[in-house]
């Protein structure tokens, strides 16, 4: 709890530091990003290149070129100036304690903010590493890591922030957004939801194989399903279900071995609470009969075997809650096109994965469903595409980040127009008369001929002129 002692004065000092303008300095931002880079030395190039690229070239330039000014603003120039927001709070989650902490932090620093990071107390080793080691790489006047549980979180939320960036559950997301109301703080909420994978009845054995590989790796390989973008459940046609299940059974064995508990290919469950949650999803009597593969649990080692279920009841918890673990329900449909209605009957997910070749169905999937992201014929990899925004919609979140979008998320785009004292349309000022009105209308309508006619006195009456 030591980080919380004197919290208010610490934060005030950070605000002061921000006001000094230090963090706006490009060199400062670069030095901090470099510090981060040292900290995560394994992926240096990847992060740095993306950011350097994003910081170097800006759509501001594009806006400046494209800016179409109405005539009234003649002789003024318009520009968009990205500016940092001030002091921001990043609350990260436990499932990818580094990625989910550092990725937004990069955005906050790149945009020139001061930032407080609160890593999840549910991943204590990572949290303490972040708290103890990360600060040695960074300017401690501008970046602080504060550890703690819900009490600390609550205390932090009472402070005034210029942005709150949260990754976690929809339940806590609501708490964050409600707390943000006090100071009218904008929030980014990176939540989750049940992300479906739609699998069409694929004909070619190669396609089937690739599909199954990609599904299994995205489900059981992505932190044992404990990722917000992991596949939550599968939608497939009845006639294709058994083929899919059989292929999965074979491939799970091939990938994770006959006894996956002993191979280290699958991550364990983060803590007992989550283990028990998964256990209760699985031990629901209505669900038990639908298990077709796996299902064994080892509480001592917090291990859950990769488990496949076919058609568990739709009102069972496993189909109403986000699973966040290595349980994979398969829901069968008469027709693969029914998947669209099925998905739309649920809250909007963070991701939809569609393993389909049919172009028409692809188009329907694109235009008729809504989700944070949509990936055709693969899963989870959209996270790596920095040119794509990452974020949810509806129940799966508010706001987006990654790459340039992270920079934007932590920036305010200030609209600036500059004018000289030289020209003024005299008709911009009262007292007003029909003549001026006519001119102004022409100006607003880009009607240059009209302007000329009015000035020459050749056009006298406005249409629809409403005398008052």
């Amino acid at each position: 709890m030591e980080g919380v002692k004197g919290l208010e004065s610490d934060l005030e000092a950070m605000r002061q530091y921000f006001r000094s303008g230090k963090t706006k300095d490009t060199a400062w931002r670069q030095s901090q990003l470099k510090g981060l880079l040292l900290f995560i030395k394994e992926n240096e190039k990847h992060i740095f290149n993306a950011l350097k690229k994003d910081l170097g070239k800006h759509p501001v330039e594009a806006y400046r070129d494209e800016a179409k000014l109405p005539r009234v603003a003649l002789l003024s120039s318009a520009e968009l100036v990205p500016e940092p927001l001030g002091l921001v709070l990043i609350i990260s989650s436990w499932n990818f304690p580094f990625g989910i902490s550092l990725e937004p932090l990069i955005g906050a620093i790149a945009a020139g903010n001061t930032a407080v990071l609160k890593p999840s107390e549910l991943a204590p080793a990572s949290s303490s590493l972040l708290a103890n080691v990360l600060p040695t790489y960074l300017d401690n006047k501008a970046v602080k890591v504060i550890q703690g549980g819900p009490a600390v979180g609550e205390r932090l939320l009472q402070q005034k922030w210029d942005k709150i960036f949260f990754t976690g559950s929809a339940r806590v997301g609501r708490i964050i957004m409600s707390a943000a109301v006090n100071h009218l703080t904008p929030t980014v909420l990176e939540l989750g939801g049940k992300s479906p994978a739609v699998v069409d009845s694929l004909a070619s054995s190669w396609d089937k194989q690739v599909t199954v590989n990609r599904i299994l790796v995205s489900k059981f390989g992505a932190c044992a399903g404990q990722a917000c973008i992991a596949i939550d459940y599968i939608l497939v046609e009845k006639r294709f279900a058994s083929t899919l299940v059989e292929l999965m059974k074979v491939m799970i064995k091939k990938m994770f071995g006959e006894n996956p508990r002993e191979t280290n290919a699958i991550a364990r469950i983060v803590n007992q609470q989550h283990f028990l949650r998964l256990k209760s999803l699985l031990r629901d009597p209505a669900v038990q009969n639908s298990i077709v593969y796996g299902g064994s649990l080892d509480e001592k080692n917090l291990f859950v075997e990769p488990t496949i279920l076919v058609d568990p009841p739709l009102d069972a918890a496993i189909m109403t809650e986000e699973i966040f673990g290595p349980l994979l329900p398969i829901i069968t449909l008469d027709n693969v096109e029914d998947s669209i209605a099925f998905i739309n009957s649920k809250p909007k997910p963070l991701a939809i994965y569609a393993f389909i070749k049919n172009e028409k169905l692809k188009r329907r999937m694109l235009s008729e469903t809504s989700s944070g992201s949509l990936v055709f014929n693969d899963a989870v990899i959209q996270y790596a595409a920095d040119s794509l925004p990452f974020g949810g919609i509806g129940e799966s979140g508010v706001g987006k980040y990654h790459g340039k979008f992270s920079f934007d998320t932590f920036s305010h785009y200030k609209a600036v127009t500059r004018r000289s004292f030289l020209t003024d349309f005299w008709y911009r000022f009262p007292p007003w008369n029909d003549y001026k009105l006519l001119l102004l209308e022409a100006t607003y309508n880009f009607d240059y001929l009209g302007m000329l006619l009015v000035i020459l006195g050749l056009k006298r009456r406005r249409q629809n002129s409403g005398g008052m």
Partner: protein
Amino acid sequence: MRSLCVEPFQNFSSQLPFVTVLWNSVVDTGARRTLTYCSPWKTNHKHEAVLFPLPSRPIRKSLCICLSSSAKLPVMMEEKKKTFDANEAALLVKELNESFRTGKTKSYEWRVSQLKSIEKMVVEREKDICEALYKDLSKPEFEAFVSEIAMVKSSCKEALKELKHWMKPEKAKTSMETYPSSAEIVSEPLGAVLVISTWNYPFSLSVKPVIGAITAGNATVLKPSEIAPATSSLLSKLFEEYLDRSAVRVVEGDVPQTTALLEQKWDKIFYTGSPRVGRIIMTAAAKHLTPVVLELGGKCPAVIDSDVDLQVTARRIVAGKWQANNGQACISVDYIITTKDFAPKLIDALRKGIEECFGTDPMESKDISRIVSSNHFSRLQSLMDEYKVYNKIVVGGQRNQKELKIAPTIFLDVPGDSQLMQEEIFGPLLPIITVENVKDSIDLINSKPKPLAAYLFTNNDKLKNYFVQSVSSGGMAINDTVLHVTVSSLPFGGVGESGMGSYHGKFSFDAFSHKKAVLYRSFSGDSSVRYPPYTPEKQKLIKAVMNGGIFNIILALMGWSRD
């Protein structure tokens, strides 16, 4: 609009048990009458019905009935307001969501047809609009045209011209990790959205966000401000007449109606108004995790250096204060900061500027709006009469409570802790604060919450750049006021206390769109390293998983990891 429940008689379709009677219809109860009703599918159909008041029953709004009888009979009227409760609101949202789900609002054609209708509405009904604005605010026709009608028209024009371009998916680069693949960012509508507008520019601040919502393909409900009742009822009438009511609606009312609306689940709420209500909106939105755009206000400063062209500066200040709805605009100049030496000259120039624009007696001028309501009048009056400031008036000061008029009024050197310098003024009062050095103004501005706009008048380029860099505000204009709002290539919106989110032009489209990331992959091009069982090389993946570094995982998954 008032309404009355009418019990159907005989062959009236059983699916339409209740009907609405236009407010000006005079009807009796219990009597059998021949009614002319118009419905979406039949017009001027004659039918007999018994009029029967049912105050507590819901009203079917899809049918409008007007009496064909000319007989004037006793009336049993019931305010429609009273029936618009949470149930009614829920029904409305359900209806809108249903039409959204049909997909029709997503089509380019629908969006264009609605935008064209708005354009047509503004052209054909300009006179009605001006009249309503005059009723609500005595808004001069000229000002009404500039800030309301022309703004809306040019928004429509731009949207119509650019819509195809805006709707086009944006290609995104794909990286090595996802090779081979293609990616795009697709703008998709959010669903049913709520626009709550305000009274100072009751027409444009209502219609402009609605244009944004429509261009993005949403179903929209507009709640105009009850403080500008004439415009509110006109909007309700015009929307009904010109727009597709299955997807664009107006709900009139005040607190109870707004509360009923806010209880519903919206896909976006767009609010223009005060920070106080902004907080209420955001609290309601948090319940459903609804994203909000809040267009608020704040004290917008204008800093005036001593090297400026005085006449031009004064004119532009006059334009940005009294010509902007008599100071009742969220971006109008709230206070001026200038140097001690320059203040007297500036005051003279402003006095002259006011006279040029509004004559020697501005209370008689037709070119200036009145104060919107007696509430606001007394609020402004108490700002003026505060003992700390009442003797600081150097220009103006006249007021007329009966006509709700206050003359352009300038104060010199009011104390920083006076109400005038603490609250957003939102009226024709203009305090001038003096500083020793013009640079000191920046600290003064930064000691207050971030404003929606900040203005600077100077010829000093260094000061300009310093100002742009060190003052944070929603928008900014150098050597002018208010003008940045007309530039549709610039976003309009606040930061901090002055709001969140932005709109205008393409930014309106974006505000009401979700940017969906779409990645296309083929079934080819997989590296075996991506899949278990993990050979020693594949150990990298496990390491990555253990370390939790997402990039490592991805890199390892794709087989691009370095050790």
